[in-house]
């Protein structure tokens, strides 16, 4: 059972209205348990629609989505799916409801009927996992954007999900807030084995994922490791997506006759590549 894919998307189609063209069409992929999958694409590429289909907020108009073997179209699974595949949205100010961080995390647990005596332990655990325990008595509206998103994530973690779906959770944050949220989610993926679907505009975030899916016009345009995806500079340019600066530098070196590898993503990898291309250049 653990070898079965966690999320399965088969020939998925979604139309907001039967008359208009589909927002998603012919989308198929599996997400293994414990994977960190980044989904890249423009506004209108279908990536946010996909997110809402992954936990049953939207239901397929064609094809299917299953979460741990549960088909999202079956009513009897709705609440199990929402609880096991939690979702975090873009705007940190729209997701917090209570006047205290602790109560905000409790809110979701009350909704799913967790016994009152179980709640404190689960809330504390969720706040510790997101590094927000010291803020439990604070008012959410006085927190930074990154802290608010971590509270939103804690609220979901308290429900003990197996998957987290984050729909541009860092888009409205400053660099420090983005790093806080990304580090928190990467640790949950690494240490707690939570499957992550990380939807983003930022290629530097996608570069850290285990796998990258590029959406375009409602279809999967590219699917592979960050190296395999980002080394396709021309294809990404054609989609008007960014390429990591060091990948672009490798391409510029190639244009100047230096046989640099195409799949360089980071500064450290570029340093290694310079060493390989010119052993005598770096001696210390």
């Amino acid at each position: 059972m653990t070898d079965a894919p966690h999320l399965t998307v088969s020939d998925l189609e979604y139309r907001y209205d039967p008359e208009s063209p589909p927002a998603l069409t012919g989308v198929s992929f599996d997400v293994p348990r414990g994977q960190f999958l980044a989904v890249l694409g423009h506004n209108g590429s279908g990536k946010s629609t996909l997110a809402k289909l992954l936990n049953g907020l939207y239901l397929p108009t064609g094809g299917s989505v299953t979460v741990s073997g549960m088909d999202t179209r079956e009513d009897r699974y709705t609440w199990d799916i929402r609880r096991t595949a939690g979702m975090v949205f873009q705007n940190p100010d729209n997701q917090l409801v209570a006047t205290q961080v602790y109560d905000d995390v409790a809110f979701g647990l009350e909704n799913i009927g967790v016994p009152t005596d179980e709640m404190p332990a689960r809330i504390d655990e969720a706040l510790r996992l997101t590094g927000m325990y010291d803020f439990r008595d604070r008012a959410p509206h006085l927190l930074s954007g990154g802290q608010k998103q971590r509270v939103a994530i804690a609220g979901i973690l308290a429900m003990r999900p197996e998957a987290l779906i984050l729909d541009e959770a860092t888009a409205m944050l400053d660099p420090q807030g983005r790093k806080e949220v990304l580090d928190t989610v990467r640790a949950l993926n690494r240490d707690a084995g939570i499957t992550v679907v990380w939807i983003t505009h930022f290629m530097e975030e996608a570069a850290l994922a285990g796998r990258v899916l590029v959406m375009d016009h409602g279809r999967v345009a590219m699917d592979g490791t960050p190296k395999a995806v980002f080394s396709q500079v021309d294809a990404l340019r054609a989609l008007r997506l960014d390429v990591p600066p060091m990948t672009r530098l490798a391409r510029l070196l190639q244009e100047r006759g230096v046989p640099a590898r195409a799949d360089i993503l980071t500064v450290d990898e570029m340093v290694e590549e310079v060493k390989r291309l010119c052993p005598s250049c770096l001696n210390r």
Partner: protein
Amino acid sequence: MPLVLEQVSHAYRSGPQTTVALDKVDLTVRDGELLALIGHTGSGKSTLAQHLNGLLKPTSGRVLLDGQDINAGDANRRALRFQVGLVFQYPEHQLFEETVYKDVAFGPRNMGLSDAEIDARVREALALVGLDFGEISPRSPFELSGGQMRRAALAGVLAMRPRVLVLDEPTAGLDPRGRDFLLEDVQRLNRSGTTVVLISHAMDDVARLATRVAVLEKGALAMEGTAEEVFSQYDRLTRMGLDVPQGFKLARLLREGGLELAERARLEDIAAELALLIKGGDGDAA
């Protein structure tokens, strides 16, 4: 004539506490430049931006345009302020009219221009941001895509024909295509003579676009210079919690390894120099 901040301080009160948001800032925005203003969240960047067009008044110090104090109480103060256009963060939140045309016309109408002049300004401003007049101007601004809304809001400021354009994180929340289009607009405006002050967290964009960079820390001006001069102070920026463009990180690591790669802002320049060093280095080794 430049826009000059002279010992500008700004303090505000929240409850019993007084917070100093700007602390004796001396900064000159030169004609025709693209000045990037960087700093940590809370460093005072947005407060400074709002002083550039008189939206906020300094608690002490002066803001001078063409040598005239824009906060002095005389009659041409309004006219001075129209010359500095401020585009807020998430400016599309301030779109409110029923059509894009009316929204872009709002500023020129406020300036008391004739209908014919207003019409010319709206057409010009939409063209500057690459929005088709025939298609977009009759539509509700709320029907546009996120990137188009942002550019319509920018057009509303451009319609006042500001000499200085101040943009507070203009690409925040946009997708890569929206970011590209918007930064192309800004670069084109700058090349055709508009002075630009760009507030941004995106250091790789700053390195690529800015002719000069100013760094704010805790309300004070901490550094000022070319991108090369500022970003080569890697340790200091890191201590302020600021990121450094990747090209500068690479140059630093390679120099530590003994390769004398100059610090350059543009990846094209780095590639050209690195290619020469690698080819030359191979020759030496042989």
